[in-house]
């Protein structure tokens, strides 16, 4: 799963949104969905807002994801309507808890998945530069995204090596050894790769005071306006109505 997040190859989407718009949508959905009010009209606004991640996934060739999300969300909504107050006591509390958690967290997480799976690292960094985020954050951030697939790869190699030496089976008996045998070689190799990476980055002039150029073209288009308006309208009406 890690490998497809923030990939460096280009991503085919029918609607291409600017990373800044994606961030804005994420923020709007996040704030409104996690807000506590669920009664009356605000419930409809939240349901309306949940359409945004669905549409975005649908138009970015992630039809399965979109359908999964829709089924999940609709099931939770049905549960909210039909299952409440059907049982008494603790059972009712648990049902409510699960459904409320799904209703609140699933749309935001889906939008987060959309953001991470359709944005290239370069695009993201270009957008971060446009909103004048300091280099002290953008450099570690890009290193981090560069490193997550590396960690997965190194981990697979370590696991294979352990299997070859026949020490892969002892972990049920000894969890602390399991942690040690995996973590120590992993961190050793990661630190070594990290040193090489910083040497390479310095050679390419990452630390220089000159403004860096970026090959990725980002910019706003019609769809950015449409989706931003949708989110803003929902947010404003939500604030006015509650």
């Amino acid at each position: 799963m890690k490998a497809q997040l923030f990939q460096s190859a280009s991503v085919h989407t029918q609607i291409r949104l600017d990373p800044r718009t994606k961030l804005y949508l994420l923020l709007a959905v996040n704030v409104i969905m996690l807000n506590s009010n669920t009664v009356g009209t605000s419930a409809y606004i939240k349901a309306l807002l949940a359409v945004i991640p669905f549409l975005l996934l649908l138009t970015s060739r992630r039809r399965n994801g979109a359908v999964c999300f829709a089924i999940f969300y609709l099931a939770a909504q049905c549960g909210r309507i039909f299952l409440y107050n059907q049982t008494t006591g603790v059972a009712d509390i648990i049902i409510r808890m699960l459904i409320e958690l799904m209703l609140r967290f699933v749309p935001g997480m889906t939008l987060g998945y959309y953001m991470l799976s359709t944005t290239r690292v370069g695009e993201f960094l270009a957008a971060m530069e446009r909103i004048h985020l300091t280099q002290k954050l953008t450099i570690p951030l890009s290193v981090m995204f560069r490193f997550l697939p590396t960690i997965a790869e190194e981990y697979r190699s370590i696991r294979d090596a352990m299997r070859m030496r026949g020490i892969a089976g002892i972990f049920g008996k000894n969890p602390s050894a399991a942690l040690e045998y995996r973590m120590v070689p992993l961190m050793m190799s990661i630190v070594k790769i990290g040193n090489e990476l910083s040497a390479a980055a310095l050679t390419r002039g990452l630390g220089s005071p000159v403004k860096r150029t970026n090959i990725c073209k980002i910019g706003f288009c019609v769809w950015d306006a449409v989706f931003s308006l949708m989110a803003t309208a929902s947010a404003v009406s939500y604030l006015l109505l509650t």
Partner: protein
Amino acid sequence: MNNKLNVKDLINVGIFSAIYFVMFFISGMTGFVPIFAVIFPAILSILGGIPFMLFLTKTRKFGMITIMGILMGILTFLMGQSWIAIITGFVCGLFADWIYKAGKYASWKHILSSYCIFSLWVIGSMLPMWVMKDAFFAGVRAGQGAEFTDALLAYINSRVLLGIIVLTVLCAVAGAFLGRGILKKHFKRAGIV
């Protein structure tokens, strides 16, 4: 010594943030079992001890832990969790930085308390559960009657949150000792520290 952060420091922050985030991801996986959802900060603070201790040996400048905290907040936000984690990440990271600096970047006591404080950032991503509690229980009250609800609310109230904080700090202490042990056993010998 030059106290400004240079590119090498920033890259180090990125690397260790990545490892720490993998730990976050692993402990978050256990959160699908309902009871673990509450104690996953504790699991994280045990697992995160090893990378964090190694990270601190590479840190001799103010601000690196703060950046790591903010990065964690941003990443959990990008994954669709609450934005509050960005703020708690910043605050906890800043305090952890101060403590670490006060110990001249070497004192074990300061390192220990620095890691305990830093581990608390993750509470931020859970905080909405407590903030939204009132609205949630208004619905329960309508369905189940006030008496039952009040009894339950008194039980859940801040006590659980406090319990999670205490548990997290305790596990952070355990994680820090684990990290130091592994550091002594392996990394010093290999010449990485």
